[in-house]
Structures are given as C-alpha cells and as structure tokens.
C-alpha cells in the first residue's frame, strides 16, 4: 500500500538529480588530475568541485535515498498510511533549502574545505548551516519512522514487526546517533568560529568528533542496501529469506557496533592515545561480523531460489538463477564489490597495516568501491524495483537496465582497482595535480589514466540510469499490484522481544559510544592550550 507516492518520488528524484551532478563533477576531477587532462592552472576550482562532490555524495544523496525508501517501507511493510505526511514534506524542503544554502558558498569558492571540514580551515558560515539543515531535515524522517512504528504496534500488539521496517527503524536510529558527532563539531566548534564569535579552535578534538560520524555514516549508507538484500532480492528472484532471526541479529549488530569504532580514522593522529586506538581497532574487526552473517544468509536465500527453479548440484544451481533479472545481476555485482571492498577494509582496521596506506589513494579507492560500488548499485536496483509501484507505469527495457548495471560494475572496478594500487605506491589523496614528469611519480601515470577512464564509464552508466527512470515516468500505465517484501522460509509468528524492539540495542549503542568516546572527548575538551588560530579559506 503505497499512498504517498508523490512524497517518495520527490525524494528519489532529488536524490538522483544531485547524484547526477556530483557524478559529473567526480568524472571531471578524475580527468583533470590524470595525465590525459591538461594542468588546471587554478587548483582551487578542483577543491570547489571536490567539496561539492563529497557534500552531495556523503550527506545529501544517500540520506534522500534512505528517506524515500524508508517512507516506502513504512507504508508497504506496515500496510499503513504514513503518519505525519506534512512533517515529511517539511523535512524534504529543509533538505532542499540546506542543499541550496550549502552549495552557493561552495560554488563561489568560499567553502572549499571538503565535506570532512578540516578545521582549523574555516569556510563561509552558510556552508555549515546548510549541512546542518540537511541533517535536521533527515532527523524529521528519523522521528517519523519511530512514530509510524509505534502507531502500528498499538494496532498490532505483540505482532512481529515486519523485517523491512525493523531494519529501517534500526537504520534511522543509527543515523540519528552517528550524526551527533559532526553536529557537535559544527555547533560547538566550527560555526562559532565561522560566524566570527571565536577565532580559535581545537583541531584535534574536532577530528575526534568527526570520526564519531565518519565511520558509522557508512553503515547508514549501507542500510538500504542490506534491507534490499534481505527483503527485496529473495522475492524478486523467486526465493525465500533463509533466516528471519539471523537478519534481525545482523541489523542489531550494525546498530550496536557500527558506532564505537570511528577512531580507526585517527590511527595517524597525535591527539589520540594508543590504548583507544587499539580498542577501536578491535571493535572495527567486530563490525565485519554482521556482514559475514549477511553474506551467508543471502547466499543461502539465493540458493533456495535456484533450487526452486530446478537448480541441482554443489555449484550447478548457480546457473539456474534468473540472470536476466536486473535484481539478480545487481546483487551479484554488489557482492563482488563488497568482497573486495571488505577485504580492503580489513586492512584499514589495524594500525599496523593502515600505516602503509593511511590517507593514500587506497582509501579513496576503498570507499568508492564499498559505497559507490556495493551500496549504490543496490540503490539503482531498489529504484528499478519500486518505480512501477510509484509511477503506476511499467519499466520495460530490462536489457537497458542490465547494460546500465554492467557498466556501473565495470566502471567501478576499472576506477578503483588502479586507485588501490597507486595508494600502495604512496600516492597521497586530494591532489589537484600530479607532476607525472617526476621519475618517481611517472610509473603511476598509467594507473591514474585507467581510473579516469573508469570514471567516464561510471558517468555513462549514471546517465543511463536517469534516462531509464525518466522514460519510466512516461511509459504506458500498468498496475504493478501491491508492493511486497520477501517472506522467510519460516515466516515468524512470534519473535522474542529483544528481536522485535530497539530500545535495548539503542541503549547499548549509546553506552558503547560513551565508553569508547567519552574519555578521549572529555580529556581533549578539558585540556587547555590546544586551541589554535582559525585559517579562513576564500578570504583573500
């Protein structure tokens, strides 16, 4: 039961429109710093573009996708009209206003501080306020997800919360809490300086606050993808979810252990002691657990589909899968990229291995493979799957959809594999220009060129994606029927309270954050003599 289709479509369209712009900027950046581009005489333009690319891809695009998908889940999984539609529109317009407010100073070159902010560099105050508005808009969504679940519980006391909604609400809580780190950094530290009320800032403390957000935000980006793995893919390929409880355990684990691990981003930082670095390293290893469980459950669910279709043998069933179905293709690509990206992530998680690739192009390659690859390709699949239900029109061109997914997969591999490689060679990040004439840098020229070509393949795929959706708006009308989620092999009739509610896990999430972040933050906040003068960008 999808009633508020306009609301959901508005979120999706805004998401994909800004995605298209940021993708174009990304491809341009790949080109301009590669040997095939000519030297950009004003490097500041590169950092403007990079700030816009990061801000959109990190904050605006995935948040809007999660919101659109979340509203769709709430209405269709709970079979209940969305409560608080006006608030939802208010959230949407806050995000529009925030994005516009942030993008103007970026375009004027007044906020080229990158989406990771990097104080004591300070940009125009409206950039930060715009980001805050985007986050506040998304917090309305968090509240609405919680309210809608509560309304449903009242009407269905004791009934198992549908898996999709259970996971969706877990994702919203994760986002609400992880955004607090950057919010504290912005509100307590950066905005007072940007507004001219203060002139000094503790850069070390700011980095710790930001690490609070920076890692768990990745799991917020990941949530729609994992929800699609568990609740859409098995239905779309004619299978069943292998285990409903294992799915719930995975989402709960993400909620609890995604948070207290962010300091692995600060392994190279002098303001964090060795002890907390080790604790966060160990917790980072733990966050691989829900992914390992997911890989098992989804492979098993897919095998069920294959065997129902007549697949036989130890591996023979793989051939029986519906490979012409875009959802099947997207899942396979997503898993391959998740495998490589995850393996790279295990290297980043220890101080010892991180030292050889910390802040090199390896890291850029890593998160593009995980986020741009494994996660975003499932965003495409979610859109393809939902579109007929949202527009009331059929998406007919399956071949074009398959081509688009293939191109995205190939483009992402061609972009990120050489990127990892030059990272191992020690190529630093966020450089507008490389002197490929230097004999020590010249051997990296080929890899950087390959990455740039990959960037163009991605751009082509992104354009195809938008074209497919736009054409879907004008296709002949067809009733797609009610939107359904996958059923489990053993569809639960009762679920233990711990796997049906979030309170305990939210408490654990907050508790672990306090134990893993409380002391380092207090220690830095209370020590004096660590605030340094702000350095304003774009002031000249």
């Amino acid at each position, binding site marked *: 039961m999808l009633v508020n289709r306009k609301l959901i479509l508005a979120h999706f369209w805004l998401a994909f429109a800004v995605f298209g712009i940021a993708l174009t900027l990304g491809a341009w950046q790949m080109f301009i710093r590669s040997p095939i581009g000519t030297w950009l005489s004003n490097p500041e333009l590169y950092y403007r573009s990079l700030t816009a690319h990061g801000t959109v891809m990190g904050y605006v695009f995935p948040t809007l996708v999660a919101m659109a998908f979340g509203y769709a889940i709430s209405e269709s999984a709970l079979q209940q009209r969305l409560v608080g539609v006006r608030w939802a529109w208010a959230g949407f317009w806050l995000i529009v206003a925030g994005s516009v407010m942030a993008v103007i100073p970026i375009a004027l070159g007044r906020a080229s501080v990158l989406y990771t902010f990097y104080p004591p560099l300070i940009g125009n105050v409206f950039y930060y306020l715009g980001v805050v508005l985007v986050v506040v808009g998304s917090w309305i969504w968090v509240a609405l997800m919680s309210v809608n679940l509560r309304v449903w519980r009242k009407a269905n006391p004791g009934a198992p919360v549908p898996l999709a909604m259970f996971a969706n609400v877990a994702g919203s809580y994760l986002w609400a809490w992880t955004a607090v780190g950057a919010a504290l950094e912005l509100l307590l530290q950066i905005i007072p300086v940007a507004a001219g009320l203060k002139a000094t800032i503790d850069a070390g403390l700011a980095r710790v606050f930001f690490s609070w957000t920076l890692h768990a935000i990745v799991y917020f980006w990941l949530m729609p993808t994992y929800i699609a793995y568990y609740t859409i893919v098995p239905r779309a390929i004619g299978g069943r979810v292998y285990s409903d409880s294992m799915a719930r355990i995975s989402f709960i684990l993400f909620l609890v252990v995604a948070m207290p691990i962010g300091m692995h981003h600060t392994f190279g930082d002098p303001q964090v002691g*060795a002890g907390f670095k080790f604790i966060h390293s160990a917790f980072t290893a733990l966050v691989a657990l829900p992914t390992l469980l997911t890989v098992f459950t989804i492979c098993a669910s897919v095998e069920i589909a294959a065997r129902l279709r007549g697949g036989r043998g130890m591996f023979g069933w793989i051939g029986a899968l519906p490979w012409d179905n875009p959802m099947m293709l997207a899942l396979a690509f997503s898993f391959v990229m998740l495998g490589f990206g995850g393996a790279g992530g295990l290297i980043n998680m220890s101080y010892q291995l991180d030292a050889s690739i910390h802040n090199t192009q390896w890291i850029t390659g890593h998160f593009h493979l995980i986020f741009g690859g494994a996660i975003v390709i499932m965003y495409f699949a979610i859109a393809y799957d939902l579109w007929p239900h949202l527009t009331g029109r059929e998406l007919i061109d399956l071949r074009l959809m398959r081509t688009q997914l293939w191109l995205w997969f190939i483009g992402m591999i061609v972009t990120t594999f050489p990127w990892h490689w030059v990272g191992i060679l020690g190529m630093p990040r966020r450089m507008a220009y490389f002197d490929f004439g230097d004999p020590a840098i010249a051997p990296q020229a080929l890899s950087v060129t390959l990455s740039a070509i990959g960037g163009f393949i991605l751009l082509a795929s992104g354009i195809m994606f938008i074209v497919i959706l736009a054409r879907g708006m004008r296709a002949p009308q067809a009733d797609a029927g009610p939107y359904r989620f996958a059923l489990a092999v053993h569809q639960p009739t009762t679920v233990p309270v711990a796997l049906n509610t979030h309170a305990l896990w939210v408490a654990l999430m907050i508790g672990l954050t306090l134990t893993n972040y409380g002391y380092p933050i207090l220690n830095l906040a209370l020590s004096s003599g660590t605030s340094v003068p702000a350095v304003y960008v774009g002031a000249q």
Partner: protein
Amino acid sequence: MSAEETHHNSAEVAARVERRWATIAVIIIVMMALLAAFAGIHRATMPQPRVEITDPSRLHLSGEFVESNLGSVLEANGNVTVRAIGQQYSFTPACIVVPADTPITLRATSADVVHGILIQGTNVNTMLVPGYISEQLMRFAKTGDYLMPCQEFCSFGHEGMWGKVKVIDKTEFADRAKGGGRLSCVGQ
C-alpha cells in the same frame, strides 16, 4: 518419511549450518584482533604512546620547534632525532637527511592547519595536527631518495606540498654530524 518430518530435518540442518558459519565468522574476527595485537607488540609497530601538546602560534619563538632546532641530530646513543614542521605549503626542512640502518625518531608538528607526512615506499605515515606533536619511529634499510608528500588536504596549495627524505650512508652522516648543529640536505 512424511513431508513434515523432511521439513523438520531440513530445518535442523539449516540451523546447524548457520551456527557453524557464525562460529567460523567469530573465529576469523578474534584471530584478526589477536594478530593486530601480536604485530603491534612483537614488531613494535605501535602508535605513539602519549599525547604531547605545543602552541603553534609560538613555534618560531621558543621551544623544541624553533627554526634553529629543525633538522636531523645524532644523539649520544647513536640514534637520530629528526624535528620538522609542516605549514601551508611546505615542510621545514624541505629535504630531510638521515642515515641508513639507524633507529630514527621523527618529531613533527604543524604551524597552521592539519597536514600529514607520508614517506613513499615505507610505512612511515602520520598526521600533523596543529597544537599536538606527532612522534614516529623509523629505520631505513637502504640509502636513496624518497618522496615525502603532505597526505592531508591543507587548502589550495596542497597538491604542491612535497618534501624529500635523503637516506645516506651511516658513516657519511656521522662525518657530517661532527660539525654539530642540525642537519638537512642543505649544504651537502
């Protein structure tokens, strides 16, 4: 066997397979954490043990990072200490000279914004955060020139912030150190 029984059996098999996988996953994770701890202790690759602070606006006036104290110095025990600062958009010294096969302590900080030091071809890699002192132990097996880019965005000139490390023979370094003072590639 009735259909119900088959179903019951397969459910048991499913639960067993699932448990087995979960156990393997947990073992993998525990192993990784243990390996990291072992590598850290056994190979002595640990982050700096303590947090030290310094005032970036007074670096040039007094203390450890005044200009005359930057560069490499041969300590009485034969080890070498290198002191350096990063600022928009260069390192001082821009070219660091060190001996091969010698334990070296790098102590560095930033005079303005966040920078980073990365020595290509090695795992020497640390952030420079203004207000804090970064310390890293290093040892070069081979002589030669290494590029040392700033690895963190430090505003518009970041792409031009490249330093160098010159690793020279141990005896040659000792000769040059006889004159006292702080060594860099300058005056070689």
